[in-house]
């Protein structure tokens, strides 16, 4: 029942991308997002898309698996796309396509909508590559390492990373627990599959209460276990697995630098997103 949560699920494989340093991957994903927002025309987005396809091939994660993360936010994409279609307020160089009541659809609003949907699509796909190729532990390690400068302003970086890794660590445990409780209540005749939204929400109560009780119990046990091992925060703590930058990360940085430079050039020579209308028209 709860096994289809793909977003942020690690896909085990051996690949170039899997072997990269998590810090490098986080920074490069930010570069990837910058590239998406830097692109002012469709050629830039196409370049980003090609890079994305290349990354997926390189990471050896099946395309279907990456696409599944889109399913979760498909609604958001469609919703923002429709809003943008109807309420785009920019100037238009052409006759409006539809002009009815408060709705105006122009060529520009269509272009804008497509552009925005593509951006969101690339954004989610790109970030899901990060989570598909990096274990949660490596990811929090990377974040902790990247946030180290914040320690200067006494920001509890280590504690934050610990909270994150504990939360991530307990997702599968609590998922298993949920499935077990669901099975147990089903065996007592609970019905989760039929009925309206309110009835279904009510039916979840016999699952949520035991789940909450057991989450508290686990939290207390974990706290005791940490105390028993004399856990005392970040002070004097060393790492078993040290993060190290390798030639892979250098290659990655060069590659993304090339991508961003490429997009800047595409922006300079191939006009804005709206010029696509004239560009298509000139083909005929």
């Amino acid at each position, binding site marked *: 029942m709860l*096994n289809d949560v793909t977003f942020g699920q690690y*896909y*085990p*494989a051996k690949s170039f991308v899997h072997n990269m340093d998590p810090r490098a991957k986080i920074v490069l994903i930010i570069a990837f997002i910058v590239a998406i927002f830097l692109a002012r025309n469709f050629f830039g987005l196409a370049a980003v898309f090609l890079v994305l396809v290349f990354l997926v091939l390189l990471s050896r994660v099946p395309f279907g698996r990456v696409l599944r993360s889109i399913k979760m936010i498909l609604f958001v994409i469609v919703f923002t796309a429709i809003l943008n279609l109807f309420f785009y307020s920019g100037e238009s160089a052409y006759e409006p396509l539809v002009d009815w009541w408060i709705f105006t659809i122009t060529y520009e609003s269509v272009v804008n909508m497509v552009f925005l949907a593509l951006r969101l699509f690339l954004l989610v796909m790109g970030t899901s590559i990060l989570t598909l190729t990096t274990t949660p532990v490596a990811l929090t390690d990377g974040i902790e390492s990247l946030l180290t400068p914040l320690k200067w302003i006494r920001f509890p970086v280590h504690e934050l990373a610990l909270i994150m890794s504990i939360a991530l660590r307990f997702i599968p445990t609590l998922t298993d*627990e949920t499935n*077990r*409780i669901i*099975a*147990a*209540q*089903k*065996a*007592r*005749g*609970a*019905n989760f599959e039929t009925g309206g939204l309110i009835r279904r929400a009510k039916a979840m*109560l*016999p*699952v949520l*209460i*035991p789940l909450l*009780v*057991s989450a508290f119990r686990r939290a207390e046990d974990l706290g005791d276990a940490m105390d028993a091992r004399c856990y005392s925060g970040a002070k004097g703590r060393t790492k078993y697995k040290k993060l190290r930058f390798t030639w892979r990360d250098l290659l990655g940085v060069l590659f993304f630098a090339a991508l961003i430079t490429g997009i800047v050039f595409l922006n300079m020579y191939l006009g804005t997103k709206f010029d696509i209308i004239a560009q298509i028209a000139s083909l005929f």
Partner: protein
Amino acid sequence: MQIVAKGLTYTYNPKSPFASNALKGVDLTIGEGEFFGIIGHTGSGKSTFVQHLNALIRLTGGSLRVGEYDLADKKCNFIELRSKVGMVFQYPEYQLFAETVEKDVAFGLKNFRKDMDEEARAAAVREAIETVGLRYAEMEGRSPFELSGGQKRRVAIAGVIVTKPVILILDEPAAGLDPLGKQELMELLHRIHGGWCKTVVIVSHDMDEIAENCTRAAVFSEGKVAMEGTPAEIFSRSGELFALGLDVPMTARCALRLKERGIDIQTDYTCRDFTDKVLALWKAKGGGDAQ
């Protein structure tokens, strides 16, 4: 109701790197009236198998019939099946949720017997609570979360037997109980077995528990039934059990030691029978020619 499984297969997370074959063709028949034991270590598929019996896991390969219900049939009435096949999970106390013991025990009844009136329901709840050895007047209004561990487990079991299932399945029912608690639990199961509850199936790691209580048992190993028979038959093949990484009851270990010294005892491996036989032998030997 008889349980007949043929060629049952099941795979967790199919078509993914996490795919694992939990069941690889299980053939097993559990007759009505049996007190059946399922043995096997973690990951042998025993829990997956028992969850098939009341359709908590849907059949994906092979065939399974429970009484008149054909679980391969999509039109099979699973809700009705679940009211007849009760399932007590491992650590059932973690599924308690209601404000009072009374409400928690009544949960199954409210789901399965919607037409039942208040009085009949209250009577059934009372009977279930008393069957598991708790005092109704003391319990009904209390919150299940303030009870002791043993009491919680009893309440949870009451919540399953309140619908009087014809087949009762228990996954490691005695796990985490003290010896007295274990004994009381088994006495409880024997009390209801043979009444409205025709068949009891217990999943267990504890070989002594199987030897003492079960009429028949099956050993699961790597998703298959490795051995099947009465406890006496199974535990007489101790070599095979050790090879599967399993243990034998204390009585079987004693019998093995005696055999090494040339004393062969024919026993069914229950404590009483074993001690009787040993005592008889002792008396016979003390009576005359001592070796």
